[in-house]
């Protein structure tokens, strides 16, 4: 049994930033990750990271306003103010750590445009911004000597006397189960893309942390807000970054029309993502697509420009769609991309409410895509998520270190470990009887993608909920064939599927609850936004028996009153 002040679960950008911040404040820290830190999904972010730098004539209030408008007024404005105000400082900190941000002619940081924003305020490294940041963050973790437990899979949180007291995790290399005690635990496990099929997310984005916190007693918030990105590849769902449109690429339908002119006359291709995705889906549904896709056209940007600024997109087009984007438009369609919702936290990452308006678990923190502060509300602006990971990762790290300095380590009975051993043993000893983890995952993903996509309605969502509950019953009977301990990936998949089913249920239940259309949640049977009744968050609590418990929480409004949203 090892003891820590602060244990960070997840070593993506949010997790590593949190670990560095906690260590900086003198805490004894370790960061656990089911994959090596640089394999985390933060890598996938291509386009960039937003910040309004005042010395460049930008204003954080503009960034704040556009984030609020992007969120369809569901984002909490106190949190958005923090995000926009602290962004500049964080970008400079990243630059000092070593991130090789692209520069202007004057040698200072350069920007590009991104969707939903009037100004170019997205800082970037060619089109591998996330990767360039993640590797530098890992360099800093090495420099600071933060303990990294890589290829450790967390299976549950330990709660003693109502407070988080540590985690139970499998060391994948040996298959051994460990109990790690900590005064504070930070969850930074990223997104849940695999709940949908297809998705732009990697195979490891399975919502583990959301399920861990949910089962420990923290509500999941805004889970119905699932972002469909406008430009994903048909076959495998991989993403073509928004930077392509930011740099000037067009969207065309089968007639070669720039159809966005009709849906968003001012912002066109750069309207917010929910708007563009709905427009594309409408074109496709009304017969102006080809094979379920519309086109992204980069040709007019010129080969030299594309190779320099959109190199990865170029490579991806060639490798995965057999299209040379310098010569041909590439078929794309809306695809599941990001979870706006997640583990409810306050602006310091706490998963409990100091004012007791909602119930949570003291000692537990969350940051990054796993968390919901709520910044992104109904729809996240492109390039705001990387910013979210560093700003709120740092804040959670600092706050957790402080919390840990005032808390004793709690006694944890070894029975916790034994109990977890038993649960895993059960998975390993069951006979699958023809069913499999993969089949259940696929059926869940397809059903979610059919009924909780760009357009939703009551009947479809009810079908999905029935499906998810039926799959849960099948899951309770499914087993793992690999009986070994070392690198038992079959076991990992099975545990991940359990988490995904929790998330799928929370998403569906949340979506059924929200009786209006807002942001990414668009109901064809209730197409209007209803501020009078639904300017509030939906919270989903896990219950030991029966369906989840639903609650709501008012949206925090500081300076931007809800208005009609036009782009």
């Amino acid at each position: 049994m090892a003891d820590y002040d602060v244990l960070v679960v997840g070593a993506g950008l949010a997790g590593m930033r949190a670990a560095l911040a906690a260590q900086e404040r003198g805490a004894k820290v370790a960061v656990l990750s089911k994959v090596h830190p640089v394999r985390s999904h933060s890598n996938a972010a291509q386009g960039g990271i937003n910040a309004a730098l005042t010395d460049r004539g930008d204003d954080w209030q503009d960034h704040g306003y556009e984030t609020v408008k992007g969120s369809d007024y569901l984002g909490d404005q106190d949190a958005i103010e923090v995000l926009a105000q602290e962004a500049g400082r964080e970008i400079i900190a990243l630059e000092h750590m070593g991130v090789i941000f692209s520069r202007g002619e004057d040698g200072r940081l350069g920007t590009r445009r991104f969707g939903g924003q009037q100004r170019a305020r997205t800082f970037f490294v060619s089109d591998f911004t996330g990767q360039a940041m993640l590797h530098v963050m890992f360099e800093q973790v090495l420099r600071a000597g933060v303990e990294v437990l890589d290829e450790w899979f967390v299976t549950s949180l330990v709660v003693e006397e109502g407070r988080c007291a540590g985690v139970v995790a499998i060391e994948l290399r040996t298959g051994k189960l460990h109990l790690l005690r900590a005064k504070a635990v930070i969850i930074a496990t990223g997104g849940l893309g695999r709940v949908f099929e297809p998705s732009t997310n990697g195979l490891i984005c399975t919502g583990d942390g959301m399920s861990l916190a949910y089962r420990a007693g923290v509500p999941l918030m805004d889970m119905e807000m699932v972002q469909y990105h406008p430009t994903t590849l048909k076959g495998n769902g991989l993403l073509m970054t928004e930077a392509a449109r930011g740099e000037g690429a067009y969207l065309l339908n089968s007639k070669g029309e720039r159809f966005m002119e009709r849906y968003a006359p001012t912002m066109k291709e750069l309207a917010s993502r929910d708007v563009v995705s709905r427009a594309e889906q409408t074109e496709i549904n009304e017969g102006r697509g080809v094979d379920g896709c519309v086109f992204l056209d980069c040709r007019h940007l010129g080969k030299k420009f594309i190779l320099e600024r959109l190199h990865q997109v170029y490579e991806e087009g060639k490798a995965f769609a057999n299209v040379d984007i310098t010569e041909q438009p590439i078929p794309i369609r809306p695809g599941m991309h990001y979870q706006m919702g997640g583990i409810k936290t306050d602006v310091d990452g706490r998963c409990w409410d100091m004012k007791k308006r909602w119930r949570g678990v003291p000692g537990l923190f969350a940051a990054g895509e796993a968390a919901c502060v709520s910044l992104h509300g109904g729809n996240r602006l492109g390039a705001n998520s990387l910013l979210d990971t560093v700003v709120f990762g740092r804040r959670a790290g600092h706050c957790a270190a402080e919390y840990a300095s005032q808390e004793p380590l709690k006694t944890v009975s070894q029975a916790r470990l034994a109990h977890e051993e038993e649960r895993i043993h059960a998975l390993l000893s069951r006979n699958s009887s023809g069913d499999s983890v993969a089949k259940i995952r696929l059926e869940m993903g397809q059903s979610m993608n059919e009924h909780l996509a760009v357009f939703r309605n009551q009947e479809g969502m009810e079908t999905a909920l029935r499906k998810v509950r039926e799959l849960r019953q099948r899951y309770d009977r499914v087993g793992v064939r690999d009986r070994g301990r070392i690198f038992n990936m079959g076991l990992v998949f099975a545990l991940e599927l359990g988490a995904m089913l929790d998330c799928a249920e929370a998403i569906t239940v949340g979506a059924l609850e929200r009786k209006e259309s807002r942001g990414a949640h668009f109901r064809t049977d209730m197409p209007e936004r209803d501020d009078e009744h639904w300017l509030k968050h939906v919270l989903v609590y896990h219950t030991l028996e029966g369906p989840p418990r639903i609650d709501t929480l008012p949206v925090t409004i500081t300076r931007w009153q809800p208005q009609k949203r036009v782009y």
Partner: protein
Amino acid sequence: MQVKLKVRRYNPEAENPVAYQQEFTAEVEAYSSVLDALMYLREYVDDSLAVRCSCRGAICGSCGVRINGQATLACKTKVVSVAPHGETITVEPMGNMPVLKDLVTDMKPFWDKVRQVTPWLQPEGLEPEGEYVVPPESMTHLNGVMGCIMCGVCVSDCTALEVDSNFIGPAALAKAYRFAADPRDGESQERLRALNEYGGIWDCTRCMECVEVCPKGVAPMDRIMALREKAMAAGFTNTYGARHAEAFSDSVKEGGRLDETMLAIRTIGFFNVPKLLSMAPVALRALVHRKLPMPSPFHAPIPDVHQVQRIFGRLEKKL
């Protein structure tokens, strides 16, 4: 469509833990990658098949394996590109590192090497209030090396590492270059001094293997050559590395061509027998890859060797 795979299996927990080949057939799409095929096997045929994967889009560096004998990313290799006519695809774990289970290798030695090059920015003096102001090209220039995803593919097939595990290796050296060439870094001199030691930049045999296999176009060997130039320019001459360069120029001066065999001997020193012996397999492998001239006991000078010697003469006068 169907694809046939021959996968190298190894289960450390088996009663008799030896590696063996197992044949499979996977159901895939025309656009599928070898990783998709392996995923299919894991999901529908045998869930004990161990392979690392995360992004499936060639950006996380998890899925390095050897496909038909050459290291690469499984997710970046399309099935149809390696088996256009339904050939069987061989998949094995990467080389130059221990295997833990099936296709999963132990990356600890890899990361230890990365640690060896002090892999973080060491800026000089106080941080500026805003960003460092540097020429834009100096940053775009680093895009290439920063593109490294630490997959280990180059290390797997590096011929120098195969014979001398002390060699820092292509990935870590490319990482070292990333800092040595960063105008914000204040420790390039110390970095170059360290890289100039045994195991560093002079141990690369320039076999090109890393350049060929790197899935991200990082071209580690070119970075190593650039580091050599930087080290020489920084005045690190009377060392292991510089001896190598001297031997190089002597060889060309005397024979008008590069005598790779003598080169190794002179660099290492005539009396360093163990090290010399350890070089033998490199030469053999390089031969197989046609990167060395056929051996002959003596290297005959090229016909116009006097011309070469004249060039050297002139150069030496100039210096």
